[in-house]
């Protein structure tokens, strides 16, 4: 049995590299064109090549989203783009336009075609149809339950990919154009305004029937499928997908690392104990800023899986610094400040090769070797005395509460 793939999102080159270094088997990114998430930084052609080269060093794969719902004019330049992706060693395109399949076959024969969740494949018959259409992989709709995913994987011989973490569309993906009506932004061409998260009054005829203190919202909690990873591995899901091409490097690093450890733990030691699951869940919580649940995996989504009031869950840990280097002789971490912290704070360090080691900040110096007590200038470089070794790309988070 092939080891299940851990697939992570990235909105720019730095975050893609972090995802790979923190343990993703593959990353998916958007180019400047043809991609949803228009507010993500997205990759230029040179950056895509740099990422493809970088990924090869780690034996990781790179998938490029070509997943807008195309209008006729949007296809301009697509053949050349596909040829370029093929040439630089991109492994697959994630598509919602079925017409791209023959275009890829003809112009970019080494690229795989992964069918986006935009096409809402929710049953084995849909997966079979997509295979006949020439798909190499199908991303299942997020509305499938775990039982249904098991049934589907047993009935089809096409690799399926399943979302395990991150934001959820409250509607079937691709089937919501609320933004088009309410903001003139095309949700299916990268303009989603998250109108589902707004507040609505509800009327029956002319009578208002909503509660004035709790208006109707379609906002859903984020997805967290940690409790289902074992079943997904056992039923033959090919790839576990993390959502979040708009997310920070901290989120990517923490979520990828946690699922990486969880997957490796399962393969090395068998089923995860309750204690281990609780530990990994707590790790995922450190990256969350919205409440999460298991979405449709457990079946129906009732009101407990919706957000009617406050959107934020409150984070237990703040991401405060990114390690640029380590001075082994002087035992100094050279870091870039991301958020406010100060002398006396307890910091937890995590990274590709370090798991949650803590220290208390005592000595900080700026680049002129002046003492610093309060780190409150984002992007400032500081030298921090640290009692253990760190590496570039490790991250510091302040332990805000326990």
């Amino acid at each position, binding site marked *: 049995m092939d080891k299940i793939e851990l697939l992570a999102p990235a909105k720019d080159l730095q975050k893609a590299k972090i995802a790979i270094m923190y343990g993703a088997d593959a990353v998916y990114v958007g180019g400047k064109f043809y991609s949803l998430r228009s507010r993500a930084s997205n990759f230029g052609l040179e950056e895509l090549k740099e990422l493809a080269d970088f990924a090869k060093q780690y034996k990781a794969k790179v998938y490029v989203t070509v997943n807008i719902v195309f209008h*006729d004019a949007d296809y301009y330049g697509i053949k050349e783009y596909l040829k370029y992706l093929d040439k630089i060693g991109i492994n697959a395109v994630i598509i919602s*336009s079925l017409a791209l399949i023959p275009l890829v076959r003809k112009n970019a024969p080494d690229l795989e075609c992964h069918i986006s969740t935009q096409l809402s494949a929710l049953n084995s*018959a849909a997966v079979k*149809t997509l295979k006949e259409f020439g798909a190499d992989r199908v991303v299942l709709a997020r509305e499938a339950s775990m039982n249904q995913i098991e049934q589907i994987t047993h009935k089809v011989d096409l690799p399926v990919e399943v979302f395990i973490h991150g934001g959820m569309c409250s509607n079937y993906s691709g089937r919501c154009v609320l933004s088009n009506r309410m903001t003139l932004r095309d949700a299916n*061409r990268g303009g989603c305004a998250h109108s589902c998260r707004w507040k609505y009054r*509800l009327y029956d005829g002319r009578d208002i029937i909503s509660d004035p203190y709790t208006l109707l919202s379609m906002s*859903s909690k984020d997805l967290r499928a940690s409790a289902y990873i074992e079943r997904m591995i056992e039923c033959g899901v090919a790839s576990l997908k993390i959502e979040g091409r708009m997310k920070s490097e901290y989120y990517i690093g923490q979520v990828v690392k946690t699922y990486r450890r969880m997957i490796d733990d399962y393969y090395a030691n068998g089923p995860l104990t309750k204690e281990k699951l609780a530990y990994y869940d707590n790790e995922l919580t450190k990256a969350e800023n919205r409440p999460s649940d298991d979405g449709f995996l457990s079946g129906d989504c009732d009101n407990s*899986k919706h957000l009617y009031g406050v959107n934020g869950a409150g984070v237990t840990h703040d991401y405060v610094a990114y390690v640029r280097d380590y001075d082994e002789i002087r035992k100094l971490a050279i870091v870039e400040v991301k958020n406010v912290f100060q002398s006396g704070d307890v910091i937890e360090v995590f990274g590709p090769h370090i798991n949650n080691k803590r220290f208390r900040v005592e000595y900080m110096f700026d680049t002129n070797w002046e003492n610093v007590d309060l780190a409150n200038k984002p992007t400032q470089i500081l030298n921090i005395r640290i009692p253990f070794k760190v590496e570039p790309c490790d991250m510091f988070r302040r332990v805000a509460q326990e």
Partner: protein
Amino acid sequence: MELLVTLRKIESLEKFLPMVDGIITGQSFTTGYKMSKDDLRKARAYCQTLNKKFYIVMDNFITEDERMILLEYFSFIEELNPDGIYFHDLGIIDAAKSSNMASRLIYDGKTVLCNSLDAAFMLKNNIESVVISRELTLKEVSDIVTNLMGRVEMQIFGHLRMSYSRRRFLTNYFREINKDYDYLGKETLKLVEEQRDYAMPIVEDENGTYIYTDFILEMFEEVVKLRPFLRRGIIDTLFIEDDNLVAQVCRDYKRIDENNKQFVREAFLHNYPGNYSKGYLYQKTNISKDG
């Protein structure tokens, strides 16, 4: 162009059918159709009597658990021998193979069929015809129907579906505010966003929740030019209670031509005032932060 109207209750049959070339109706795997199996048989028979076309619609997504119900429903549909089946879930293509319906499938892409290439792809894969998305400009529609002469259909009247969710937004909301309310399948509920003033119909059934545009699309004048290229034009009756209005819409779409189009449209709007719109025909929806 065949002119079709959605038949959502059997009582409307005799009023609508003489005005159009056929009806679209259904029961399972769709929403807003209050038709029993006997109603469907009756509608089928009446279509045959008047030599009109009869189409079935199944425009919901189908879970793996529902596949057996789907296959049973297909047996029933075979008995009805419809002229076509409107579908949305790609799994229907595979399911139809075990019946003699495979050559009668019409793909309604709802929000995701916005271009000629995807439409052509479906047609090449033995789909009889395709319904293009509602979020297209008139120029885009014209290009697609010209590129795929006679193989393309579109909704030409009615509220436009804006969202489709498996989540039960109304059930969950009433549970959240602890309120008993009779809402399931009810077509009089509307959502108003707190910063806006238009009211969007919302309906929930056992398959999920659907939200539609506040406005009713009308394109009387535009249809005149598109008609030679369109295979079918669809009048959707969801949320429109007045059968007389629908019958008039059918009559007007049938008779409208280059000479009378302005008069026909204005007379209709005068006699049946309402919140009509050209939808997205003259309104691009690709605004980004860059403008």
